[in-house]
């Protein structure tokens, strides 16, 4: 086995194992931490594929942003330290069966599918290229999705503020 295969399987084990632990963990904080390791594993895959930019973005967004937010919201809720209630055995068995079925089903389909290697050779994606494509308003550019995302973020921000803002009458009382 070559080094790259070993690394691949290590990363896969990290991602899948911690994903499984995240689902089965009984403490919600632990679940968040295992989710974090799963996401780091995915970032590792991007590094392994030499898409460093996406890997770094994955870490910045998921590890530095989303998981920190999740952990903060866990901190701010009551009873974060207590164990989650044990799900009924029936539910455990059936959800395990469903997950197993899904796994085997998609694994069968994917392993039987003859994937054709793409015609184009892989391109080295430089950060400068990504930047200029994202802001390119010409026909080949990706300015449209970029702007769409910015509207989405604006709307999400407005929504969050509206939901979270304390109304003035409330503070007065």
């Amino acid at each position: 086995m070559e080094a790259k295969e070993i690394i691949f399987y290590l990363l896969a084990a990290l991602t899948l194992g911690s994903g499984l632990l995240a689902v089965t963990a009984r403490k919600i904080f632990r679940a968040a931490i295992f989710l974090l390791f799963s996401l780091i594993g995915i970032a590792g895959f991007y590094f392994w594929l030499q898409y460093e930019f996406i890997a770094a973005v994955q870490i910045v967004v998921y590890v530095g942003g989303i998981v920190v937010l999740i952990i903060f919201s866990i901190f701010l809720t009551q009873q974060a330290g207590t164990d989650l209630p044990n799900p009924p055995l029936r539910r455990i068995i059936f959800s395990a069966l469903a997950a197993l079925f899904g796994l085997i089903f998609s694994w069968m389909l994917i392993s039987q599918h003859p994937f054709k290697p793409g015609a184009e050779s892989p391109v080295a994606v430089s950060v400068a290229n990504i930047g200029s494509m994202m802001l390119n308003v010409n026909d080949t550019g990706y300015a449209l999705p970029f702007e769409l995302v910015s509207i989405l973020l604006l709307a999400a921000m407005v929504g969050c503020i509206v939901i979270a803002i304390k109304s003035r009458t409330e503070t007065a009382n």
Partner: protein
Amino acid sequence: MWSLSSITDIVQTWLGSTFNPTIALLLQFVMAGLLVITLFAVLGLVLVFMERKVSAYMQVRIGPNRVGPRGYLQTAADTLKLLMKEGLVPAGADKFLFNLAPYVVMISAMLLMAPIAFAKDFQMWDLNIGVLYVSSVSSIAVIGILMAGWSSNNKYSLLGAMRSGAQIVSYELSAGLSIISIVILVGSLKISDIIASQQDGWWIFKGHIPAIIAFVIFLIAVTAETNRAPFDLAEAESELTAGFHTEYSGMRFALFFLAEYANIFIVCAIGATLFLGGWMPFHIGNLQAFNHIMDYIPSSIWFFGKTFFLIFVIMWFRWTFPRLRIDQLLNLEWKYLLPISMFNVLLVTIMAIMKWHF
């Protein structure tokens, strides 16, 4: 002349010719890991000693002076003490996370060593997203701190961790923006490109006032990010006993302590690379004779000299300024530093487009 890069080349060719690629790669991993660990140990010893001496100097004291000649062995003795101490796990703690937390912090610090150029051609991994890698991987450390705070089952720890998390997440923004302002001037994220662009002068000189503003903001932000005074709310002794590592003792505490100093070293190294030219000697424009003299000083000395100068500045902060309150801290970031650095990025962009820099 012997330089660090020739040594690495020799090792590289020897490994390549003796072993098959897989084993050679593994051996390189091991060697890099060992080197980083050794560097950390040395850094820990040196920086702690330096801190104590600097603080003593600031307060007109002598500082440690009993163990060894002029107290040089003081930190070694401290380390020995920490190693011998019993590592306690408080009752009700989440043992697994409690044990894991110091390693997460430590590993993130170790990963950050990868793209740093210690000397000319002496760098572990010159990846093309260099500084982005640094700012992304450094965010993993927050998780370690949050883990430590939560799993200790202690409200001081939890409060300290939350403060630290809020602080790091917010100050990351202005640190990132001031890094970006240099990236805009260079046009690349790669560490080697950034250093090469400072061949004819460091960015702090070439970039006029915007670069100086960025440098100052960077220093403030990284001081906050490493949880050091005057931003040490996360472990404010008078309020929270010791913040997120209140419950830690022995070796685990030592790891946190070491990671803190390693992080200081890393951010200062990044600052030196971005603003002060990394290992690049001090050059003035086209003054050939002067530049040649400067080139005789080895690049590693330039690098460590600049880095330790920045570390000294950060220590200076610690012993000069009083601690901020949490609301003052957040106000400083969100109401002052962030708008200023955003505006500064704009200025730098204009400067880069108009080619106003040297």
